[in-house]
């Protein structure tokens, strides 16, 4: 058996009828396919989202007192109960979509008449605003995954990036925008990079697990922000509550569609970075090293790649990307150009889920970030229209992650034959791996 264990798939490729002694399942590992089966790769996330929406629908039904009341007459009048339930769910999800993407009719009217443009396109703008930082933090986590690192620290890296960007943004004055804005963005990258370098360095030099270190550094970053917001260098003059000075206008990211819509140039930064990360990972020798270390550190070492150096570089880059998310949030005006204690708002944690849903691929991450953005932006309207609590969105997001993390569950529900594990690539194996 030892040969089978070392080589899980001794399939003779010149003869497909040759025998595979045992198909070894890869346990709960997240598996992404290579090449030929891209469609199948999308199938499981798509079904995971669908399943989460269905369960979310059930929760909507059960959390609505009016609908529940209909159910008490279920035996005398089952149709009414079912109809009421269906309508509750339908309206909730409809509100979710119009709240995040806008209504096509309103957009058409606005474009053709030139009136009401702002309100017609506000939902879409809000979705993009919500997706922007998620793309960047998602990339941060994904690049770590690719190199076999679990970056739980995007939250802290984002905060430190924002602190750096903010400091440059409101301390330096009198600079032209072409100098000041890039400088502030760069500062954001640097701040995050510093926060990513530390766990990378500790992992490389001492073997300290990056999961533990990054979690702890999240706390440090959070308290550092609290402290700085009470410090005269940061706190807004004349205020007693913890809020920073506003960023100079020369360091602000421009709004893309006029000042009444919040959509800002951060999305361009995010999309460019997604392309850069894709290029780095799949088109450069450095990216090859990252992926080799992630896929098989022993073989990477054998091939002369320095695993510790890779860990340091990757964590630094990951930190930098999360730092950019912080800079984008702050300089894009999402928080009215100032830092507050709740600035990060869990964006770094959502990113972990996002990287999983996006299968650690930049394209997947952009798509997943928009999906999360839709859920975020639509939730408010959904609550306003149907009195479905915003929290349902958190539940749906969580369910998506559960189903993505447990592909076997999704396959079982929809009776998809498990893909043979050969030809699949495992990019995260849990903490011990």
């Amino acid at each position, binding site marked *: *058996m*030892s*040969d*089978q264990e*070392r*080589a*899980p*798939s*001794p*399939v*003779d*490729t*010149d*003869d*497909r*009828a*040759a*025998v*595979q*002694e*045992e*198909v070894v399942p890869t346990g709960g590992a997240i598996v992404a396919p*290579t*090449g030929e089966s891209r469609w199948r790769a999308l199938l499981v996330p798509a079904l995971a989202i669908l399943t989460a929406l269905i369960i979310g629908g059930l929760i909507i039904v059960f959390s609505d007192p009016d609908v529940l009341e209909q159910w008490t007459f279920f035996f005398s009048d089952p149709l009414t109960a079912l109809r009421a339930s269906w309508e509750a769910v339908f309206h909730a999800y409809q509100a979710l979509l119009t709240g995040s993407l806008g209504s096509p009719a309103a957009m058409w009217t606005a474009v053709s008449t030139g009136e009401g443009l702002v309100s017609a396109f506000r939902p879409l703008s809000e979705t993009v605003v919500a997706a922007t930082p998620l793309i960047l933090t998602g990339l941060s986590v994904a690049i770590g995954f690719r190199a076999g690192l679990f970056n739980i620290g995007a939250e802290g890296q984002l905060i430190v990036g924002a602190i750096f960007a903010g400091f440059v943004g409101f301390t330096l004055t009198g600079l032209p925008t072409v100098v000041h804005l890039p400088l502030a963005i760069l500062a954001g990258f640097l701040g995050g990079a510093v926060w990513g370098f530390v766990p990378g360095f500790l992992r490389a030099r001492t073997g300290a697990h990056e999961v533990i270190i990054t979690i702890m550094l999240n706390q440090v970053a959070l308290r550092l922000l609290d402290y700085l917001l009470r410090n005269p260098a940061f706190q807004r003059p004349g205020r007693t509550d913890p809020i920073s000075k506003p960023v100079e206008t020369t360091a602000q990211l421009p709004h893309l569609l006029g000042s009444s819509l919040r959509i800002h140039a951060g999305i361009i930064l995010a999309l460019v970075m997604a392309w850069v990360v894709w290029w780095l990972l799949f*088109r*450069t*020798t*450095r*990216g*090859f*090293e990252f*992926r*080799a270390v992630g*896929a*098989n550190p*022993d*073989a*990477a*070492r*054998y*091939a*002369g790649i*320095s695993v510790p150096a890779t860990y340091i570089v990757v964590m630094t880059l990951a930190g930098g990307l999360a730092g950019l998310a912080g800079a984008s949030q702050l300089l894009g005006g999402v928080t009215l150009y100032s830092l507050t204690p709740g600035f990060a708002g869990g964006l770094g944690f959502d990113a972990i889920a996002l990287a999983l849903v996006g299968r650690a691929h930049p394209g997947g991450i952009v798509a997943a970030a928009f999906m999360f953005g839709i859920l975020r932006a639509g939730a408010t309207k959904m609550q306003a229209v149907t009195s479905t609590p915003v929290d349902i969105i958190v539940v749906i997001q969580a369910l998506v992650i559960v189903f993505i993390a447990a592909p076997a569950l999704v396959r079982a529900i929809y009776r998809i*034959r*498990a893909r*043979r594990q*050969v*030809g*699949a*690539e*495992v990019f995260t194996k849990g903490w011990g791996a």
Partner: protein
Amino acid sequence: MRLELRGITKRFPGVLANDRVDLTAESGEILALLGENGAGKTTLMNILYGLYHADEGEILLGGKPVRFESPGDAIAAGIGMVHQHFMLIPVFTVTENVILGVEETGALGLLDRQEARRRVEDISQRYGLAVDPDAMVEDLPVGVQQRVEIVKALYREAEVLILDEPTAVLTPQEIEELFRVMRSLKETGKSIIFITHKLKEVLAIADRITVVRRGKVVGSALPREANEDKLAAMMVGREVELQVKKEESSPGEPVLQVEDLTVLDDRGHVAVDGVSLEVRAGEVVGLAGVQGNGQTELVESITGLRPPLTGRVRVAGQDLTGARPRRVFLAGVAHIPEDRIEDGLVGDFSVADNLVLNTYYLPPFAKGLRRDDVAIRTSAEDRVRQYDIRTPSIQTAVRTLSGGNQQKVIVARELSRPVELLMAAQPTRGLDVGSISYIHEQIVKARDEGDAVLLVSTELDEILSLSDRIAVMYRGKVVAVIEAASATPEDLGLLMAGSAPAASKGLSDRGRKDRRRDPGKAPGSEQG
């Protein structure tokens, strides 16, 4: 007890693992089940042992149809299995290991150790299985641990005994001992199914041979009518060259010089203990030894994967002591690693990517930071053709290839660049006969082109057929270096088992000239 399998068919998704297999083992018979890796032997035995269920077919034991839902059923019916990897608890005694799961209890549910111990002793005497019932399993040599496994099966009153690749981990002497035990079991009427892919052993011990290929029984033979070539052809499905063709070597300057090297293993114990060794250009030095006697660590420290504690490593005059893998590689060292899946390949990467795993950053594969995918692809196509790598495409994940083709990817990568020294560690382990002869050809070809080759192998046949000189490692030391021409498997076996003095005496008694004088030294240092 007579065992019969009739029309056993087992399908896995996309694969037909067993295709209407018929098999009979009479009582008092040793049936050899011969086949390459992946031929379906293990699946068949797992069905017999209740681990899998056959899709079709039936099992008859003593003429009666039986159905096993679990290994428990199979054991109760009298089937015992000795796995290739022992299922023993190291910190338990032999008796404790044997009774585990079928403990006999006396009053108040207390363990009746005395009775168990007595039965273990009884079994070991009856079948000539020398084991100390009170010894701790972790202290026992591998061969004895295997005996414990057999005792375990017999304790459960097995009538049919399945031995899955039992000789893979044994020295030649231990193999002889095992064969002796198998014969005595046979005499008491037990049926033994001996699973292997080694032709010599089959001919030596089996009463009948059944050959499987691609899930089907392709033939049966009696040892006295068969020979190795015939069996190999049956097993592979075509004629294969078993004998390695090679000319006399003409060694040149020393390429690899290892002096007084000491290396620690992962647990901080001395694994390589003051080893000196020399490999010259144009010769193959075979490093023989039972697995775990420091060969792995020696190779790792030469190739830069494990820093040595003391000593020196020089390759072609360059001091590479403690150098990083990349420097070693740039100095012209090719390395076929012992564990090809763990160290030699990134399984999820494509064949093309694996072919540039250690050259990806050099021209023409890289232009600055950018990978040159065209160059990588072109070179991969060439290698695939040149080294006859059977893959659907160069973009196929290397994980999905057969072991032989995976090894060809490594060989192609390592040998398609200027090389001074080839380190080949267990280069054919787990490969099919066809791939083995191909890899052997490549090693001889590298030698003939003037490369120095250090071949590490636990297969004595491989060592004997490829080497020009043979160094034997035992407990971290090179205990002997002998000319291959004058070496015999028996001598090497004794040296591998650590009985060096007796071996030297025995050898000189037989009047051989070429004997080393100093056990710790290589002949290179004698010459110098």
